[in-house]
């Protein structure tokens, strides 16, 4: 049988990031002549159903960004039962020993590392603006229910501390959701509590959340030059912000090419099915700092 059919399962099918990934994979499929079934797997139950569904359609394998990395063993198990090949994207499976499952090829950015990049970008900009670390507070919009979110903010925190940031000046704003308004709600009390700081840096798991923090800072009368917010992803939320007439506290974002992730993983899986050539264990991608000055260029480069 010559027809190759693969699945592309993502944990948040409504997010621009994943839409891009799936779209890129489909496009590649059209170019190379295989079909891509796009499915949602927002929790374990849905992922397993999606795999069953793929099996019913006779797919030979799938790319997945799992809703929880610890679902790895169950997913691998299911795939093996059906004789399907698995490749992960963005979030890497973890085994029962807490270590990554090496047998499943992965492509993605490490949450921790991209977080570090965020921290480094912030630190560099602080230096450029000549801020004294003693006078700078950090708003860390956290979401500890989401493991990836934790990794990212942890990475950023670590990088900031390494650059000499004062640990006591970091304040947590736990958000309930990953959208702008929940970040706004979480950030507000922090600003009202620590009104004595003149300089703020803001980071979170994604752009939307950082934007919520920036909006809250504006609410408390902080001006754009008093705030450095750096997000992650490179999606519409960031473009919206950069295309505003005047600069805001949203300084930049770590853009990652979702298009590349989608294409590359789909291609890897296709080659594996078609030619039996197993992809590399782990391909790590990194982010590019996108700011108001270069965003259009970076966007074009990354194909977003």
């Amino acid at each position, binding site marked *: 049988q010559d027809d190759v059919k693969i699945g592309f399962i993502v944990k948040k099918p409504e997010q621009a990031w994943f839409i891009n990934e799936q779209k890129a994979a489909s496009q590649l499929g059209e170019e190379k002549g295989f079909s891509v079934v796009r499915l949602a797997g927002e929790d374990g139950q849905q992922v397993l159903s999606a795999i069953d569904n793929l099996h019913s359609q006779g797919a030979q394998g799938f790319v997945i960004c799992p809703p929880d990395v610890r679902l790895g063993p169950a997913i691998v198990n299911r795939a093996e039962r059906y004789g399907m090949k698995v490749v992960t994207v963005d979030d890497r499976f973890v085994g029962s020993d807490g270590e990554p499952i090496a047998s499943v090829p992965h492509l993605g950015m490490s949450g921790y590392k991209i977080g570090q990049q965020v921290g480094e970008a912030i630190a560099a900009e602080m230096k450029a603006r000549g801020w004294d670390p003693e006078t700078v507070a950090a708003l860390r919009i956290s979401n*500890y229910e989401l493991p990836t979110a934790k990794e990212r903010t942890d990475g950023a925190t670590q990088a900031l501390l390494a650059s000499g940031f004062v640990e006591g000046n970091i304040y947590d704003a736990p958000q309930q959701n990953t959208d*702008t308004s929940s970040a706004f709600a979480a950030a507000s009390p922090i600003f009202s509590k620590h009104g004595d700081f003149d300089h703020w840096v803001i980071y979170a798991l994604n752009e939307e959340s950082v934007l919520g923090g920036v909006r809250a800072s504006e609410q408390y009368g902080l001006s754009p030059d008093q705030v450095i917010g750096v997000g992650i992803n490179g999606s519409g939320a960031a473009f919206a912000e950069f295309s505003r*007439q005047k600069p805001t506290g949203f300084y930049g974002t770590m853009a990652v090419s979702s298009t590349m992730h989608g294409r590359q993983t789909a291609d890897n899986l296709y080659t594996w099915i078609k030619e039996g050539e197993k992809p590399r264990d782990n391909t790590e991608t990194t982010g590019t700092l996108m700011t108001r000055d270069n965003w259009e260029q970076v966007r074009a480069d990354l194909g977003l």
Partner: protein
Amino acid sequence: MAPVEPARSGLPKPLRTLLDTSGLIAVFVLLFAGLAIFVPDFLTGRNIVGLLLSVTLIGSIATTMMMVLALGEVDLSVASIVALAGVVAAVVTSASGSVTIGVMGGIAAGAAVGAFNGFVVARFGINSLIATLAAMEFVRGLAYITSGGDAVMITVPEFFDLGSAAFLGLTLPVWTMIACFIVFGVILNMTSFGRNTLATGGNAEAASLAGVNVRKLKITVFALQGLIAGIAGVLLTSRMGLGDPNTSQGLELAVISACVLGGVSLSGGVASITGVLVGVLIMGCVQNAMGLLNVPTFYQYLVRGAILLLAVMFDRWKQTRRAGG
């Protein structure tokens, strides 16, 4: 059965209403005093302003949800309407270059969804929970389709002024919420429309026989709910600077619980605007204080759940005690 309150019949109306909902008001006053004393920075001007701002979305929508619940119905689609209205406003503003047209478009989208809900419920007699659950899915889908899934950027800078225009230190969203409370408080208590809404919620058949145009009433109430959710969505978009189709998931439950906390009956016929206000404020204060106190998220769930339960239980206890004594 509810108790008679003879001694009170002589009191002026506002005071009586106050006493009727007093169980909850007492909860709120105690809570507020407690927070003011024990939570540093709670009782500062800017925190109170921030607190108010943080409840604008829930607060504005709760006023019309109160009407819907008074009618004996429910509307689960409000969060989706917020998202759709915001996205539509952003898209239309960017396309037409006119903030007015964009804002109108967003609000109209909200009102249209509301009217449609009302039509389905009133004309076909479909249970509103299921009708608006369907709408919740459908409208969220529309929001994603309109925006292409991604947050929509707004290119016209005047759009942002809407959300930040301030008067007497309060921004437009806060004023909108205040206006909603006044307008729907007046509608509920001072107009026959409001009383007919309560009557219909109390006994729809009797209301219809008593000459109430139940169908028109239902459509109007749902349309108002859509309208206000639409306005709230547009203001949210302008405050956040982007039209996000993903926004406000779960808002409907928060709004409904604020109403129920405020003594609005889910079986219809009973509602009070003071109650809803207090319900909204209790929820807002608790959330705000947890932020100030740096309560870990996991425990925030516990606190929210416990407060909700305790507040309703306390209210209940006051009621039965009053009935007994």
